């Protein structure tokens, strides 16, 4: 329950004998908002608006240059004893009307005061421009006469006939797109390529110009004046804009909504036309431009303009649909009210909403748009800082001021001096300070569990690439590839006739050496020595050849699974020595080899790696445990598997040059960490399967962590 506004005001004498009335140019329109009647006053010269309740309008409507305010007030009292505005309310209202330049008064205005007001407004506008540096506006020209001149032609399109045409065109466009969907996708990959950017921007400007003209024509069509066409630097990208605010006074809601949606209507139309052009041209500039226009006019429209959380068309459309004018501001007030009411316990805080459902809408919009905007602004900040170095830092500072410092300063000011908090100031300050202190403690002191993840591959701990030690022709497979084999089990039978001959040759040479040795024993002992050597050499040759011959049967060195998908095809083929005969993998023990980014490297050393989990791609629902982690000290540059690199769809950046045909050489060095996987029943461990390992670190408070991240970011991006 708020204090009622006082029927009698001590300042009444200041207005009582004044003869004021609405300016003759002021237009009054009746509008309904959420079922309630309102009167909207509009000054077409300054494009200023003012919304009045019917009770207040009863008073304002009676103002007349021949009547004093007092007389009018008495009239109202006599006619509407219950609802006539109080003196205080009248003074408040007249002052607002005056400041909205809607009031005509017979006294020469206080020119010094007017000038001061003008200066203040200029200053505020300048400040506003700086604070909105990401959406700076520069009014350029007045398109109204052009619009009026062309409206007889263009205006005809804004009609049921136009709507049908529009629907047909959109249908046609959609048809084209569905028929050429695959091409569309292929070309889409090159959309953001550097070479395409100028064309993309050109397309954007063309589309947005039509978009804005759409607003202007629709507005003009329904009787609103459009006096400003200018350029807005949206994140430093010049874009056209028009001021169609005069549509706010339209009585019909659907007209206001249509003006808001006009830009999108036009863009979608253009997109449809561009789709037809694109499908009917061959590769070339026109083709590319048509493609760009098509994408820009459809995708950007739907993503940006339709989104009510940014203050673009969607916002105004939503505002009109909900019949809550000034949605954003009132949402802010609503949030403030909730805060004051339930946190600071301000007794007389009143919601700006007149009905509960309006309150819910305001709350919902307030919360979502705040969160959304925070994210978008943070994104813009990072993106800008990323793209433009010095400039970007200046811009970031400006944005930081307008999006962070400014609100904080305002909040402090609000806490310190807002009359709304007069009675609960101590509590409000107490709560705010303790909330801040709590947050700081939470962030700076309380350790948070902390982890990072690294991509890696499964590798068997016992794995061997099998190769034949002796060349030969494959005679027979002694074991089936893909089946478990025991240690020493023969896998493959090779045949090498040459080896057999060599063996026979060597044997005969040994025999000869033996014979000569016997002979020498009988005859002469002087030549005995060389013969012994000869004999042992021959024996050695035999032994070697014998070993080679033994190797003609390939045996599994350990128990495991012999993986050799193509070996069947090689039966009968000649294998050079050292040919790849597949992999022998011991399935009983697997390792996970993870590649840890350099940034996370600090976390690896100094303390034991704690309980970690591995999730393999394709079996992300099961967490595999691992133990005995070992860190390979020293940075690596070659990935354990090319599957982890960008080139093969992984997420580790790999070099993109000729030296890296394998696609496994990384741009930045990384640390390799190996751990033994504890097998789980549900996950099939296969050598080479990729996944991610999560490493839990010692819990650490967030602020030092953020600070470290920031330092790393700066170091990485700016080498500071």
């Amino acid at each position, binding site marked *: *329950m708020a*204090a*009622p*506004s*006082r*029927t*009698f005001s*001590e*300042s*009444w*004498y*200041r*207005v009582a004998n*004044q003869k*004021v009335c609405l300016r003759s140019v002021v237009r009054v329109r009746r509008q309904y908002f959420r079922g309630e009647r309102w009167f909207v006053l509009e000054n077409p010269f300054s494009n200023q608006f003012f919304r009045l309740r019917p009770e207040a309008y009863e008073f304002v409507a009676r103002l007349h240059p021949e009547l004093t305010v007092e007389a009018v007030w008495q009239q109202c*009292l006599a006619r509407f*004893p*219950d*609802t006539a505005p*109080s003196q205080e309310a009248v*003074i*408040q209202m*007249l*002052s607002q009307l*005056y*400041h909205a330049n809607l*009031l005509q*008064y017979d*006294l020469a*205005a*206080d020119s010094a*005061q*007017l000038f001061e*007001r003008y200066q203040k407004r200029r200053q505020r506008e300048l400040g506003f421009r700086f604070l909105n540096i990401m959406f700076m506006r520069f009014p350029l020209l007045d398109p109204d006469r052009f619009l009026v001149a062309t409206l007889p032609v263009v205006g005809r399109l804004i009609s049921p006939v136009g709507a049908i045409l529009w629907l047909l065109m959109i249908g046609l466009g959609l048809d084209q797109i569905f028929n050429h969907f695959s091409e569309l996708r292929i070309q889409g990959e090159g959309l953001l390529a550097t070479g395409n950017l100028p064309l993309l921007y050109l397309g954007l400007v063309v589309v947005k110009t039509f978009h804005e003209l759409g607003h202007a024509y629709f507005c003009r069509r329904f009787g609103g004046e459009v006096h400003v066409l200018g350029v807005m630097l949206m994140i430093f990208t010049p874009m056209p804009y028009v001021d169609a605010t005069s549509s706010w006074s339209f009585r019909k809601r659907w007209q206001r909504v249509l003006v808001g949606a006009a830009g999108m209507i036009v863009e979608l139309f253009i997109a449809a036309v561009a789709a037809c052009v694109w499908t009917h041209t061959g590769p070339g500039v026109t083709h590319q431009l048509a493609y760009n226009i098509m994408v820009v006019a459809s995708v950007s429209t739907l993503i940006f303009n339709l989104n009510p959380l940014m203050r673009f068309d969607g916002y105004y459309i939503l505002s009109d649909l909900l019949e809550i004018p000034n949605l954003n501001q009132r949402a802010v007030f609503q949030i403030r009210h909730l805060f004051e009411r339930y946190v600071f316990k301000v007794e007389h805080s009143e919601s700006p909403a007149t009905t509960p459902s309006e309150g819910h809408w305001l709350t919902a919009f307030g919360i979502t748009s705040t969160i959304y905007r925070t994210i978008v602004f943070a994104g813009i900040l990072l993106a800008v800082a990323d793209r433009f170095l010095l400039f970007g830092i200046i811009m970031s500072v400006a944005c930081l001021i307008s999006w962070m410092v400014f609100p904080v300063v305002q909040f402090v000011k609000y806490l310190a001096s807002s009359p709304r908090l007069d*009675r609960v100031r101590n509590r409000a300050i107490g709560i705010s300070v303790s909330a801040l202190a709590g947050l700081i403690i939470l962030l700076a002191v309380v350790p948070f569990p902390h982890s990072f993840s690294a991509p890696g591959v499964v590798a068997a701990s016992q794995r061997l690439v099998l190769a034949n030690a002796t060349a030969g022709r494959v005679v027979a497979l002694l074991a089936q590839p893909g089946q478990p084999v025991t240690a020493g089990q023969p896998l493959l039978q090779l045949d090498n006739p040459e080896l057999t001959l060599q063996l026979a040759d060597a044997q005969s040479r040994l025999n000869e050496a033996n014979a000569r040795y016997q002979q020498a024993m009988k005859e002469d002992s002087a030549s005995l020595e060389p013969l012994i050597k000869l004999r042992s050499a021959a024996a050695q040759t035999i032994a070697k050849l014998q070993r080679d011959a033994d190797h003609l049967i390939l045996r599994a060195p350990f128990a495991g699974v012999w993986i050799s998908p193509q070996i069947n095809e090689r039966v009968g083929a000649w294998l050079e020595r050292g040919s790849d005969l597949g992999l022998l993998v011991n399935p009983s023990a697997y390792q996970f080899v993870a590649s840890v980014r350099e940034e996370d490297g600090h976390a690896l050393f100094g303390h034991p790696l704690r309980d970690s989990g591995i999730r393999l791609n394709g079996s992300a629902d099961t967490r595999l445990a691992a133990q005995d982690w070992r860190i390979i000290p020293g940075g690596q540059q070659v990935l354990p598997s090319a599957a982890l690199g960008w080139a093969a769809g992984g997420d580790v950046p790999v070099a993109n040059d000729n030296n890296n045909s394998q696609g496994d050489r990384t741009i930045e060095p990384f640390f390799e960490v190996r751990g033994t996987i504890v097998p789980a029943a549900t996950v099939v461990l296969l050598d080479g399967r990729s996944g991610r390992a999560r490493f839990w670190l010692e819990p650490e408070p967030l602020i030092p962590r953020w600070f470290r991240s920031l330092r790393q970011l700066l170091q990485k991006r700016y080498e500071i």
Partner: protein
Amino acid sequence: MRSLPTQDYRRSDYRVPTRPFTGLDAVVNRYIGAYRSRAAVAAGLLKESESIIQLEREYRDLTNAELQRRLIEFREHFRRGGRQVPAYVGPALAAIREAADRQLGLRAFPVQIMGALALHRGLLAEMATGEGKTLTAGLAAVLAGWSRRPCHVITVNDYLVERDATWLETFFHFCGVRVGRVVGSAPPPERVKGYECDVTYVTSKELLADFLRDRLHLGRLQDPTRRLIRHLLQPQTAARSPLVLRGLHTAIVDEADSVLIDEAVTPLIISASHKNETLRNAAGFACEMVRALEPGVHYQINHRYKEVELTEAGQGTLVEQVQKLPGLWQGPERRLELVIQALVAREFFHRDKQYILDNGKVVIVDEFTGRPMPQRTWQAGMHQAIEAKEGIEISDPSETIARLSFQRFFRCFHKLSGMSGTAREAAGELWQSYGLAVITIPPNRPCARQHWPDRYFATEPAKWEAIAAEARRIHALGRPILIGTRSIAASERLGALLAADGLEPRVLNAARLKDEASTIALAGDPGRITIATNMAGRGTDIKLGDGVAAAGGLHVMASERHESGRIDRQLFGRSGRQGDPGSAQAFVSVEDELIQRYLPGPVRRTLAGAWQRDSAWKERFLAWGCDYAQKKAQNSARKQRNTVLRSDLWMDQALSFAGADTI
């Protein structure tokens, strides 16, 4: 008499005040203020005044006629103005001092010359009570009056206006300065005569009211230039100027703290009563309606903010009875306003505290000065609600015709200066609001007043008992006693308590104003006991009777600490004036209004607990609580005054289409 058009220009001349500083400007301005009132300024003035004293030989031997001739010569210099004027200030003051000596028999002390210099320079001189502020103002007024620019010496009440103007008349006359006075009862022609003089003694309220009335006369032609053009174009319209004042130039404010600070809480309002039958009826009905409402059941009382709020039950009762009200007041907002006013009248406005009844009329008592303010009314509705509550005839609401805050008015002087016994505490505000830098003038003779340690009590009855006992004790010594109370009711109660003891206290409060002068005149006699609400004695000296000084002088007892420490100091300053002996003591209890109102609930409860447990540090705790509450009260009062100025400025901006208000 046909006046020149330009004369009219002068008559409405005043300085258009600049906007008060805000933000960083205000911070910088604060430092400038601190610099302007630095100790070196006072030291420089003292040196200068000593060198002026040295000049006395030059004038001592002159005959009266010769001295007067010299004075007239000085007057010519001042009249002409120009760059040489500062060089003449010293010799002129020496001559004026001589004149005062011959006409009044008072030879100004160096500190008084120093004060006069400070006034001449537009500073605020802090001079202890009884240091001869009246003469100091007179010296400076002569300098200002010589220039023929309007000089107003502003005091707090008509009594002082009369007294000072009468007392100094011969002196001013001797110096070639015409002196006039304007008091509340004077009719317009007499006022014009008063303001026509070179120096005019007047109260701030009268001056501001005359200023406002002049502005009302001018109507739409506020701007002198526009008026001048009109006069030149249409000479026939140039009728005799209806203006009473002849512009604003120099103001010397006596008791500057009460004029500029305490009384600045409410703006001055010129009003006319306006027939409003429905409001009168409605107030009566509302009063009847709320009779059935009970606190806690139908409404909640918030003592701190002086508000009431209806509960659900209260609202229900209201709806049932709404038919009784006149149609205009049946709307939900209006009837709520009306009923709440009636409840506020009942809960927060008490007879003999906020107002007194005088001949069947409600007369507001100023909370700070304790004086009745017959001109003042509460806002429309509230006044009627109180009248309804008292069951007296309900008057028509008065309708504001013009209003102006003192803060803005005093910014309209080209040269504002002032004197006060207690300005240090408010130095910051005086600088920020009025551009007055405070400098301290040392006392002529060191102060011999003893400040006895405060005494603390758990309950009010205990306190009153102790006050009575102490009064008896001091009375037995033959010393006069002055006891300050906060409300009329308290002063009467204490009077009865002492009378029951066989003492003969004289009570001085808003209800017994007639014998103020005689009571004060006798208050210094041996064995006299005077009980006064805090108005009493402000701006008036209590002169000690025979033999009192030997007995130890006047003893001042404060029965309560006031919201403002300045007011406490003023009360204590009644004793020990001009080096007389004297003593002062304050009595404080946990139940005092100051503590109850401004100490936060938990602290208050802890404090009460400490007294119940008879804790060892209960007194220190209470002393601290008292200081804290006082600081809080002062802050909130300062905020309120700021709000007055700010809302004035806001209103100007908001309604500038209705013409600049008065300024």
